[in-house]
């Protein structure tokens, strides 16, 4: 029998309240759309505020300049970010933090706590979600390692000061901790979520000291767990956001003399999305509870990811449809959520992928 524990601390409560207000205020949809046109896709002033609020160091131990809380608290502030379509480098940095912590590589944590932008580079051209499926390599040359290969889908690569890139050393997966600048190595990619910035990173020719390589497999698990949890947090927020947009439209638009929200084909679909939202949030906070307690969260995380990403992708699709002609236009916000939903669905494994893994975990091979 799976645990059904959910804990929610006073700190989380306060963080959530702060984050809800902050995101609502700093990320109205007009701001989101304005940033979509810019190069970096986020507002450095808002980022500085987030750093000043201490969010970048939430999960970093106090001795490295953080507040010594954990991933559960990080997820708590990410949920409202997802709701308001914020796309700062916060999530990519927090994923890196977890990998660094698990890998025992503490040197860069103080900088990240201060607001230095960090990210991970763990995917390659064939789009395989298996983090151990790595073509890029590190080879020893004296006390240095020489890197080779190309990573893709590196979020916020264009502004990152710190990148954790997965490579193979002597056949085993490892994380190379790279410090910028990466000028000339980062190439912008076009991705479905236009509020995001993604890059490919050419590693070939880079040399790093041997000490900059994390070989502890725990780092990969921590990276994956953080990526899944925060992706679910974003998605859960996103479902709530797109449901708001949709319900609002259905309550205002009239057709054939009735508010369209009175038609069962639309209202029942919204009820189903609400049900999905409730289940997704429950999975989210349960997985966060396990992560926060450093318990094995693999089943909880994969369940949460499968549930939330399917619900969000469907909610985005329905939102476009239910806005009718307006939904087909760029000006309708439904498409922004649909794009975000698809990004999240296909990052770190889609629902079908996680269900297959869950089948092996829960039902045996």
């Amino acid at each position: 029998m799976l645990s059904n524990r959910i804990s929610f601390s006073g700190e989380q409560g306060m963080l959530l309240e702060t984050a809800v207000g902050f995101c609502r205020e700093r990320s109205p949809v007009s701001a989101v759309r304005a940033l979509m046109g810019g190069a970096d896709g986020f507002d450095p002033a808002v980022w500085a505020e987030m750093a000043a609020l201490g969010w970048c160091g939430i999960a970093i131990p106090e001795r490295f300049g953080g507040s010594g809380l954990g991933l559960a608290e990080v997820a708590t502030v990410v949920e409202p970010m997802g709701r308001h379509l914020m796309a700062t480098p916060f999530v990519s940095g927090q994923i890196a933090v977890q990998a660094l912590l698990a890998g025992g590589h503490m040197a860069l944590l103080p900088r990240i706590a201060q607001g230095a932008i960090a990210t991970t580079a763990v995917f390659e051209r064939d789009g395989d979600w298996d983090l151990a499926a790595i073509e890029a390599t590190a080879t020893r040359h004296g006390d240095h390692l020489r890197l080779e290969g190309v990573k893709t889908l590196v979020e916020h690569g264009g502004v990152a000061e710190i990148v954790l890139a997965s490579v193979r050393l002597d056949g085993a997966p490892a994380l190379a901790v790279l410090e910028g600048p990466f000028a000339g190595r980062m190439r912008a990619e076009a991705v479905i979520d236009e509020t995001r910035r993604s890059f490919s990173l050419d590693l070939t020719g880079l040399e790093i000291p041997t000490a900059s390589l994390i070989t502890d497999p725990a780092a990969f698990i921590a990276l994956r767990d953080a990526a899944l949890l925060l992706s679910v947090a974003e998605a859960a927020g996103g479902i709530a956001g797109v449901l708001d947009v949709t319900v609002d439209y259905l309550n205002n638009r009239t057709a054939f003399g009735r508010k369209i929200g009175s038609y069962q084909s639309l209202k029942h679909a919204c009820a189903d999305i609400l049900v999905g939202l409730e289940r997704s949030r429950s999975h989210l906070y349960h997985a966060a509870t396990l992560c926060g307690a450093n318990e094995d969260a693999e089943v909880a995380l994969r369940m949460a990811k499968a549930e939330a990403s399917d619900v969000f992708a469907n909610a985005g699709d329905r939102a476009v449809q239910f806005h009718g002609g307006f939904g087909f236009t760029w000006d309708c916000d439904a498409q922004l959520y649909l794009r975000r939903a698809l990004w999240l669905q296909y990052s770190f494994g889609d629902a079908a992928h996680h269900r297959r893994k869950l089948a092996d975990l829960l039902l045996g091979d």
Partner: protein
Amino acid sequence: MSEFAEFRAEVAAWFRDNRPPEPDFLLPESFMEVGTEQQFEYLRAWQRKIWEAGYLGMAWPKEYGGGGQPQAMQDIVNAEMARQKVPFVPNTIGLNWAGPLILAIGTPAEKQRYIKNILSAEDIWCQGFSEPDNGSDLAATTTRATRDGDAYILNGAKIWTSLGSYAKYMILLARTEPGSKRYAGLSYFLVPMHTPGIETQPIRKLTGEYGFTQTFFRDARIPDDCLMGKEGEGWKIAMMTLTFERGASGGQAGGIARQALNVHDTVDLARLARRDGRPAIQDPLMRDQLVRFLIEDQGDRLTAARGAIPGLTSERPHAIPLSQKLRTSEHRRRLLQFALGLQGANAARWMGDANAREGGKWQRAYFNSFSSTIGGGTTQIQSNIVAERVLGLPKD
């Protein structure tokens, strides 16, 4: 909890040793499905045995047949019954609805009269809320109770009365103020079923079994002390009764009220049943479906847990309780529909067939699952409730 460790062990041993032998007929999954004398007598005897052992009504007052013990002990018994998957106790309306209500607002005489016999299953109780033309819209109740001296005269009809053929008492919602509308003018009665003018007629279900009755009142005269609370308070008391049912404020006598097939039983089925010449659990499509159901079920369990945390429900406080029936009833219908397909050609068998998996219980359960997607407000009505009352969308 360690103070109860010894008790827990004792309970576990008792149920292990006293579990009744597997009958040679198919047991129902809840009191709503009891359809034969055989089933009824088997379950009634089982309830009596549990009560006699002191494991039912443990937290109810001693003077009325309860145990006067802490609720925690009853909780241990309930959990153990569920864990050992022993048969359920059938007097559900008495144990979970009528009993708690009588203990809460009844007179000492009423408590004396009813409570012990509820626990021992001596008196079976049934419920008269739904009416033939009103579905689950309780406020539209048309059954009348007309005062006549020291009595009330009942006229009308109720439907979907579980255990109607076996019950000695009914909790009844009827209109005492003629011409009143909706919630006003309703009153709440404890009605002796053997009263002349009360007649029950069994309803045959789509499974072919019986298990509900329709109850007719034709000038049935009951003493006026059958009234619970005051005239006109019926709605309020009915809502209080439903609170007991939902377990929100406790007070139930305990035991388990159903022994229904769930997602874990379905996984077990997938291990045993074969399709396409191999255990169904090896089929990648069946695995994907099983995992979907597991995620959904775990989602609902977690949602129940989250519902208790105000900081995580404050935006839409009614979302979880008001969507509960929608979520769980549809999950169950789809789960059972899917479970048939695990069995290959044997899915087409039916109750009583020698080769039917577990006596055809899965087929029966799928058919019975409509009782939840239809009864107590159809899925379509539940969806409206969620959309309108939680999301604020306009009425049809």
